[in-house]
């Protein structure tokens, strides 16, 4: 027996061995902890109020996420749901509460105004916020360090949407000579309007823009707005809408017997929603949205679609193509970062999110790889031309994703 040891002294060798053992066991425990640890993701969506239907559509993507992500990434996530009630102040207070209750990452919140409020809270608390859907450019223009967005800002949606207009005209071999632009006057609508106003003159469109008409998204009566648009005799209606107003507006078009060559949204919700089809029946037909969508060719999308069908047997993924998939991809991004960071520490997670590089084929939504630029924005999300055909939204362009033939000009509905 060593004399020093027998006297209670610790030798350098013993000390080194002890430190080494401790370090190894700490590392092993950390690894085991990460394997056991759950990432708590606070998902903020408008589940009630004016945007309830869309919020619930997004929710479907969040509901699928835990199982599918466990299967694909091998990490555990816990979804903490919060309802923004379609209200900015509620969105802010729910974000505060989620953080207080231990959310490691926030995801949400569909509406640009709500999302901006949540982003402020996330930044103040230093908790990462991954935007699922919200297009106002300023969200990633504030210099925030904890805010990330895999959704194109309004000018990019507008540009993609407007560029696809040319594809529509080329495919149909006919183009309108005039157009009127109608848009909701909320944060998103105004961002889109600015984008359209800036981009249209640069795109050499075949039509002349005759008028721009802004309207209240909560309007219950759009008689005047439609009357004004109809009075321009425009051949094309460019529309940036939400769901409820889209229904009111389309009804009013039928009542006022206004049948332009097409109703085309350069990238807004509304026209492709299930409620739009339900409320309008045959009058929902032929409306077009040039919008972000999912890539049906990706393996993960097929797994997502199968999980969706299993969990929501009565629902059709076509009606949730943006909301559910982009919400899922936001959660996927958080889980991917968690897997790499091996930590729920907000700073480590934010850094891991910044380093994200999810291949274009490993995401559900349609676009390039999920990589954030210095502002926390993913570039390269792509749009498709989606037309309501046979009672549901159908991809008609680009050709390689098309499910049906484009119908433009819209045939008269009897």
């Amino acid at each position, binding site marked *: 027996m060593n004399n020093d040891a027998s006297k209670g002294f610790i030798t350098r060798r013993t000390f080194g061995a002890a430190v080494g053992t401790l370090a190894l066991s700490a590392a092993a425990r950390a690894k085991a902890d990460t394997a056991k640890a759950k990432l708590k993701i606070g998902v903020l969506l408008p589940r009630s109020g004016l945007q309830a239907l869309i919020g619930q559509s997004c929710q479907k993507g969040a509901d699928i996420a835990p199982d599918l992500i466990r299967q694909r990434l091998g990490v555990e996530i816990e979804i903490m749901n919060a309802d923004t009630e379609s209200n900015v102040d509620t969105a802010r207070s729910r974000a505060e509460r989620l953080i207080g209750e231990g959310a490691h990452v926030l995801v949400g919140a569909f509406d640009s105004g709500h999302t901006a409020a949540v982003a402020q809270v996330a930044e103040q608390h230093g908790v990462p916020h991954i935007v699922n859907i919200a297009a106002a450019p300023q969200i990633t223009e504030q210099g925030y360090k904890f805010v990330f967005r895999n959704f194109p800002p309004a000018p990019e949606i507008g540009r993609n949407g407007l560029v696809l207009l040319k594809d529509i005209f080329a495919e149909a071999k006919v183009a309108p000579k005039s157009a009127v632009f109608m848009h909701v006057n909320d944060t998103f609508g105004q961002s889109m309007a600015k984008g359209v106003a800036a981009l249209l003159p640069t795109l050499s469109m075949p039509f002349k823009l005759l008028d721009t*008409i802004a309207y*209240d998204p909560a309007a219950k009566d759009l008689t*005047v707005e439609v009357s*004004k648009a109809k009075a321009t005799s425009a051949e094309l209606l460019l529309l940036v809408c939400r769901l409820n107003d889209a229904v009111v507006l389309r*009804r009013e078009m039928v009542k006022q017997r206004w049948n332009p060559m097409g109703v085309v949204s350069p990238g807004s919700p509304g026209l492709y929603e299930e409620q739009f089809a339900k409320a309008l029946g045959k009058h929902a037909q032929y409306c077009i949205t040039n919008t972000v969508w999912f890539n049906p060719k990706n393996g993960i999308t097929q797994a997502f679609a199968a999980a969706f069908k299993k969990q929501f047997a009565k629902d059709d993924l076509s009606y949730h193509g943006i909301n559910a998939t982009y919400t899922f991809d936001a959660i996927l991004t958080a889980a991917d970062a968690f897997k790499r960071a091996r930590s729920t520490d907000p700073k480590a997670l934010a850094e891991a999110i910044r380093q994200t590089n999810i291949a274009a084929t490993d995401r559900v939504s349609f676009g390039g790889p999920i990589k954030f630029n210095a502002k926390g924005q993913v570039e390269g999300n792509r749009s498709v031309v989606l037309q309501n055909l046979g009672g549901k939204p159908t991809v008609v362009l680009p050709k390689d994703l098309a499910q049906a033939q484009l119908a433009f000009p819209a045939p008269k509905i009897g």
Partner: protein
Amino acid sequence: MPTAAQLANVVISGTLTGTVYGLMALGLSAIFGVIRLVNFAHGELMTLAMYAAVVAFQGLALDPFLTMVVAAALFAGLGYLLQRAFINRFVHRPEHMQMLLMIGLSIIIANLLLIGFGPDARSVQTSYQLDSFELGPILVDKVRVYAAGAAVVATAALAAFFRFTLTGKAIRACADNPLGARVAGLPVAHLYAVTFGIGAASVAVAGCATVSLIDVTPTLGPSYTLLAFVIVIVGGLGSMVGALLGGLLIGISEALAGVLIAPSAKSMVSFGLLIVVLLARPRGLMGGAQR
């Protein structure tokens, strides 16, 4: 500049919409004029009537314009019971307590609707819902014409009730001098309940008339309550004629503002009108002297 046909189109549409607004506000005005109670659950009662019309249409294929007769009777009963069971106890309490009671009632109705029907928008889809009458270059929405017609008939019936029936005269007596009415032996609590029933019935008619124009959601109530407030304040709180006039004024001014200024300025104009009336004539256009 808008064409004459376009102006005529929107003015006619505004007039028809304003007539329905007027009927909706009439209930609020009648209740305040007699009971001196501000019904903060007015919009929710209208929403409830709209859901009744949706249920009748989906379950029994009953046209909303037929449902409104049954709904008016049911809502009259409901209003009567509400007043007798709860609201009567608050009539002589401070206004803030009345306000809390009515806001509580509005929250309960909205949440019950949310539990019962979910947040999805509901609508009725009648065969004539998207039809229009064509008068040369002018297109008049068929549903709006029917809705305004129903509002005119309901208003005329109410006016006749207050003018020619004994109960109507007694209610007017209560409105003019509650103490005198009580001294004369009139059953004031019963008359208050009848008045609340009439207010609820008129809002039921307005709800059934509106459901073909607007999809209903459980959260629709507050916007109608606010609209009704604007109308009765412009027209004169407590004045039935004022409510109708206020409805027409709001309907037409919103329509004209939409064409002549900008569509997004419609609400601005109605609230602007409210401020002008409050400044120039605080009692409203047809409001009487304070009691």
